[in-house]
Every structure is written in structure tokens, then in C-alpha cells.
């Protein structure tokens, strides 16, 4: 899970962080085409803010753009997440390039692709259009990204389109250009003004590595808005439904990915390795320790943004082999026990999740006897969704301990159990002692 931070998901960084990011990345001078585009598009881009109802102080800001001559604006779901999940606490407001303000009404969300459609009290000038047929983009093609970076003022920046990234679970476009916090939800257009995608995120560990939501998902969501007879009363239910859909497709995709077996001699451990789930290994280099460890970590590179404190739809797999080199049986037991201890630190005071409940057993799959602990917690706001944590430790040797930890977030109970079963059934030892 900790590697998730590599992807500054949804540009959701605090203002201070954002400022330090700004120091690193200098905005290139806009070209003449950028000037032309901005002057045409200016009337149709807005800044979207979510305000605390109580006192109307600004809580978060992002960007959006008006579609055609309608009053519909497209933005990211994560810009609107507070309004979707806590409509009693937050309210939306827009500010356009002329400084006009007005209210924002949420119409539809797409959590999986991070999109939202809102209506505002003015109409667009017809610059941004999302036609049914979308011509393909060519790698290297210039794209112009618009929005209101860091709440400093409206801006346009230039970069290159660099193909579709398949590291994230759903397709995203790689944009080699600066996107800063606050530009989320703004449009990225081609030189002739065609919408290519919606600004969504950037990698904090890279330079100018940014991501866009492909415009076809915008098209699909707008169609859905056109079809929908009334605005959902409770967006929490909609979000919950979409999270359930996501976990289903995540599970389908995992089950279609054959298990890869990694060797932690003498054990063989199962992992899923694919474009979305990446693995890396580690082993202790410190020779002073009286024990050695080798580790295989695999984690999905992306997670779904639900709110500032919930990111879900994620799986991470860790296998760790501890081997005693000098420790006797007693001291090795103490080491193995300590490593196995306190792996689930969640408590009962969290507004997002219930307190974890666990099942613990000594289990064998005929190839390897294990100590297995399964801890499950439920999402308070989203019925039917759970976080599963499976911790196992091999119990076949007094000098070696294979400890695995499989964390799956935002899955149905059934799918959580399926993943648990897969990992319990597939751990093995090559040569039985």
C-alpha cells in the first residue's frame, strides 16, 4: 500500500506540497497556438470549489469545462467527492474567468474513471465539444491543458501526448506536460481545439509525467446524464454501486491472470504479476544480523479515489521469508512471533471502517502447514464492501518462517474469501523435510 503514494493520486495534495511541486516544475512559455486556444476557450473554463456550508469557507478547489452551449460542466469526481459523499456539509460553487460566481449542482459521477458532470447557472460558448466519434491521437501530438493551478489564476500549459498507460486499472492517457494541483478536472485539448482528455493526476516522483482521463469516458458519462430522468438523491449509493462494479471487474481480471509462483527457497509463493500488479524483491544486506530475510512485494499500482481519506479497490501481496543463521529455536520463535504481531493496527474509532474482526486457525493445504489469520472490516458508508487482510506464517520449521500478508481493499465478502482461498491453497514447500 505504501507504494501507492508514488502516484499522487488525483493531485490531491495539500497546498504546501503543491507549492514545493511547483518549485520543481517550471511552466514553459506558452506558444502562439496556446495563446489562440486560451483566448477561445477562456469563456468556457471554470474553477470549481467545494465550500463548507457552515461559513462558506473553501475546502477544496479544482477545474472544469462547459460542454458545448449547454449548462453542463465536466470535472473530476475527486473535485466533487465531498459534495457527493457529504452533501449536508459541503456545497459547490464555480468561478469563471470573468470572476462570476454561481452554484453548482452535481448530476452524475463516475468514480472508476474519476469523472463528474455538474450543472451551473450559465451556458457555455460552444468551444468544448464531445462528439460521438472520436478520432485517435498520435504519439507526440501537442496537447494543451487548461485549469486553475494552485488557485493562482487560470492557466494553459503545453505538453505532448504519449500513449495510453496500462499501469492503472482503467485506461489513462500519458501527458508529458505540467499539471498542477487545482487543474484537476480541466480539459486537455489538441491544437485544433478537440477535447482529448480531462486532467486527473501526475506522478510526484517524476518530472512532467501527468495523466488524463480519455475523452470517451466523458462521452459515456454525458450520455448517461442525458438518459437519466432524475438526479440521484444520494450519491453515496451511486458511489457504492460503482465500487462494487469495480471490485467485480478487478476480481475478473485477477482471476484471468494466471498465478505466478515466486521462489523463496525452499518455499514457492503465489503472486499475480501483470501490468497493473507489479512485483519487486528485497533482501537484507546487513550481514551483522543473526538472521536473514528475503521479500517479494506485489501491489496494484493504482487505487480508486473515493474521498480524501478513502482509496480503495486495491490489492497488495507481501511474502517474507525469515531464516535463522545463528539464532537458536527459542530466539527465532521470538523473532518470528514479533514479526507476525500487530499487522492490523486499525481500531474502532474510524468513521470510514468498522473495527476489524478476525478468524485465526492453524491450517494446512497438504503442502504447507500455516498459522492463518483473516481480519475483515466493513466500510461504514458503502454496504457490501470490505477490506480483507490475510496473514499467514508457515509452521513447518523452527529455523524458517515464511510470512505472507495479502491486503485487499474494497471487495465484496465473497470475492474477499475467494482471494483468501487462492492464497491459502497455493503456498507450498518444494522439498518436504
Amino acid at each position: 500500500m505504501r507504494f501507492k503514494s508514488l502516484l499522487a493520486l488525483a493531485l490531491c495534495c495539500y497546498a504546501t506540497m503543491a507549492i514545493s511541486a511547483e518549485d520543481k516544475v517550471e511552466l514553459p512559455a506558452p506558444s502562439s497556438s496556446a495563446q489562440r486556444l486560451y483566448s477561445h476557450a477562456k469563456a468556457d473554463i471554470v474553477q470549481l470549489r467545494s465550500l463548507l456550508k457552515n461559513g462558506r469557507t473553501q475546502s477544496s478547489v479544482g477545474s472544469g469545462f462547459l460542454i458545448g452551449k449547454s449548462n453542463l460542466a465536466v470535472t473530476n469526481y475527486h473535485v466533487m467527492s465531498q459534495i457527493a459523499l457529504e452533501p449536508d456539509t459541503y456545497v459547490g460553487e464555480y468561478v469563471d474567468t470573468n470572476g462570476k460566481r454561481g452554484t453548482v449542482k452535481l448530476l452524475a459521477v463516475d468514480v472508476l474513471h474519476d469523472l463528474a458532470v455538474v450543472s451551473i447557472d450559465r451556458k457555455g460558448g460552444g468551444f468544448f465539444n464531445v462528439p460521438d466519434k472520436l478520432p485517435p491521437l498520435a504519439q507526440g501530438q501537442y496537447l494543451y491543458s487548461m485549469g486553475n493551478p494552485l488557485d493562482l489564476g487560470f492557466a494553459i500549459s503545453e505538453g505532448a501526448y504519449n500513449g495510453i498507460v496500462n499501469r492503472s486499472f482503467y485506461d489513462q492517457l500519458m501527458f508529458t506536460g505540467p499539471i498542477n494541483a487545482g487543474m484537476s478536472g480541466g480539459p486537455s485539448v489538441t491544437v485544433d481545439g478537440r477535447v482529448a482528455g480531462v486532467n486527473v493526476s501526475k506522478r510526484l516522483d517524476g518530472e512532467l509525467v501527468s495523466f488524463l482521463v480519455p475523452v470517451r469516458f466523458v462521452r459515456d458519462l454525458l450520455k448517461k446524464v442525458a438518459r437519466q430522468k432524475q438526479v440521484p438523491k444520494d450519491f453515496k449509493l451511486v458511489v457504492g454501486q460503482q465500487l462494487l462494479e469495480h471490485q467485480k471487474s478487478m476480481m475478473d481480471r485477477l482471476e484471468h491472470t494466471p498465478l505466478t509462483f515466486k521462489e523463496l527457497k525452499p518455499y514457492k509463493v503465489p503472486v499475480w504479476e501483470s501490468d497493473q500488479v507489479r512485483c519487486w524483491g528485497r533482501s537484507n544486506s546487513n550481514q551483522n544480523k543473526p538472521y536473514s530475510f528475503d521479500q517479494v512485494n506485489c501491489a496494484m499500482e493504482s487505487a480508486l479515489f473515493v474521498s480524501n481519506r478513502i482509496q480503495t479497490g486495491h490489492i497488495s501481496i507481501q511474502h517474507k521469508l525469515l531464516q535463522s543463521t545463528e539464532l537458536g529455536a527459542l530466539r527465532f520463535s521470538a523473532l518470528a512471533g514479533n514479526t507476525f504481531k500487530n499487522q492490523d493496527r486499525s481500531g474502532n474509532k474510524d468513521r470510514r471502517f468498522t473495527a476489524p474482526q478476525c478468524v485465526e486457525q492453524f491450517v494446512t493445504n497438504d503442502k504447507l502447514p500455516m498459522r492463518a489469520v483473516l481480519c475483515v472490516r466493513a466500510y461504514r458508508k458503502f454496504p457490501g464492501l470490505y477490506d480483507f487482510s490475510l496473514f499467514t506464517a508457515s509452521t513447518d520449521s523452527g529455523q524458517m518462517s515464511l510470512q505472507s500478508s495479502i491486503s485487499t481493499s474494497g471487495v465484496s465478502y465473497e470475492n474477499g474469501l475467494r482471494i483468501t482461498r487462492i492464497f491459502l491453497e497455493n503456498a507450498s514447500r518444494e522439498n518436504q523435510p
Partner: protein
Amino acid sequence: MSAPFYIEVLARNGEVRQRQRVDALPIRIGQGYDNDFILDDRHTSAHHAVIEGNETGGLEVIDLGSRNGVVHKGKRQARLTIDGNTVFRLGHTNLRVRTADFSVADEMRDTTLHYWEGLPPALTGLVLMVLLALLSTWVTNTEKTESIRYATGVVGLLSIGLLWSGGWSLVNRLFGGQTRFGRHLFIAASGLVVMEIASILESLAAYAFSLETLTRYGSHVAVAIAAGMVYFHLVTINPVHKRRRFAFVSVLLFFLGSGMILIVNYQSRGRLADELYMSELFSPGLRMSSDKTVDQFIAESKQLKSIVDGERGKMLGDDGEDDGEGDMEE
């Protein structure tokens, strides 16, 4: 009744503070220097009372018209018949009169081990503590061996043990007249050793027989042992006192301590147990009960669903962590 007579001033707990022999009746008592027994008590009169023999051959205390009188069992008496066990009060002074023919209680059996006082138990206690600290540091410190860790382990445990037994010695000096530091140190050290052994046995049994409850509620065993230590400390302070009362105090302490642990666990984590799951891992040779199959584990996990869903229904109080989200730019 036979002379001589002994007048005894008693402390509130019944111990004799002062004893004076008087050879003949009547015995005049008061603050004045012309009395047979002089009271150093501002709440008594110069000639407060007199003790005389009565017709039946017993003794009698007669109030000589004092302001505060002669009080027996909370009641003021003008004339009080007394025997060797009657305690009466003049002013703030508790008195008892015994005659030479008073029959005393039988000689008690001496259960105190007199050679086990002072240095021998103190040294044994110290050695036990040092060994315990070294052993537990050795077992738990699985990183590179550093002698400083052993030193801090020993110093840490010793300071706790010395403080604890020092405190008890102080109480012992107050109520028992002597410190008996060696004894208290030995009791503390033995208690710590027993705690360690008990925790090892619990862990082993839990691992061998799949008895997770043992480690989940292991802290209560430690509390019980600590309560047992308190019992032995109390007995050391006052070996003559009723032991049942000390046992009662210890049991009470155990329930208090255990209750506190349960409350703290429930408040902070929402469960009564000390830990979420058992983490003990030992050599496979120690496993006694048979392992479950994966199917059995999954079946048991299925049943967990209703419990987890039940947790969803529990509403959070106001102390729940807020979903509060600060200023963001997205």
C-alpha cells in the same frame, strides 16, 4: 483477683503503649501528680476516676465527677465493672487493667524462617532479577548483540524491583516496626519470575493446543500474580494479623486490575481481548492439536460476515476520528 495490678495504656489498634504496676487498691487515676496512675491527657480531670474492688471480688472503675467521664463501648458510665479484657476510655486515653493472675494466650508456633531475613533473601532476589532481565533480553533481542541492551535491561528491571520493594519496606517500617527489605525484594523477584514462567507456559499451551484465548487474555494472569505478590507483602508486614483479610484485599485488587484492563481494551480498541489475534510461533514439534483444512478455515470465515456486518450497525460516538478534510487543491 490478686495483686499486683497492671494498668495498660493501649493504642487504637490494641497494642500496649505503656504499662505500670500498682501494688494495692484503690488506684487513683487522673492528670494530677497525687494520683497512683498519672494521665498525660489534657482531656482528663486532675482526679478523674478510681479503681476499686467490688463485693463479688471483681474490679470497678468509678467516675469521680469528671467532665468527660468514663466511656465504655461508646457509652458514658458512672460505675463500670471491668475484667482483664475490658478497654475503657478516659478522655483520649484507652486503658485496660490486668491482675497478676490473668491467664494469657497459648504460645504461638513460630512460622517465621529466621535465617531467611536480611541478606540471604535480598541477594537471592537480586540474582533472580538480574537473571530474568538477562534471559528476556537475550530471547527478545534478535538483532546484533550489543552489551548496552543487556545493561539497560538489567538496570531497568532492577530499578523497578528495588522501587517496588523499597515502597513495601517503608510501609513495613510504618506498621510493623521493621523494614524487612530482603524479604520484600525476594517476593518481588519471585513474582516477576513466576509471571515470566506463566507467560511462557501460556504461549506454549496456546500454540500447542490452538488455545488462542490463553494469550488473548494473558494480562489477567499477570494481574493475578501481582495480586498474589501483594498478599505476600501484606503477610510479611503483619504475620499475626488475620490472613483471610489480606487474601480478600488481594482478590479485590485482582478484580480491580482485571476490570481496568478490560475497560481500557474496550475503550481504546473496541474489544475485551489484549490482542486482535495470537502471534506466537514456535517450532513445529510443539504443535499437538491437528491443523484445520482450508475448507474449514473458509467456512469459519464465512460466518464472520454477520459479525462484521453487525459492527456496521454500531454507531460511532462523537470521539470518532473525524473525516475532516483540510484545504485541498485538486
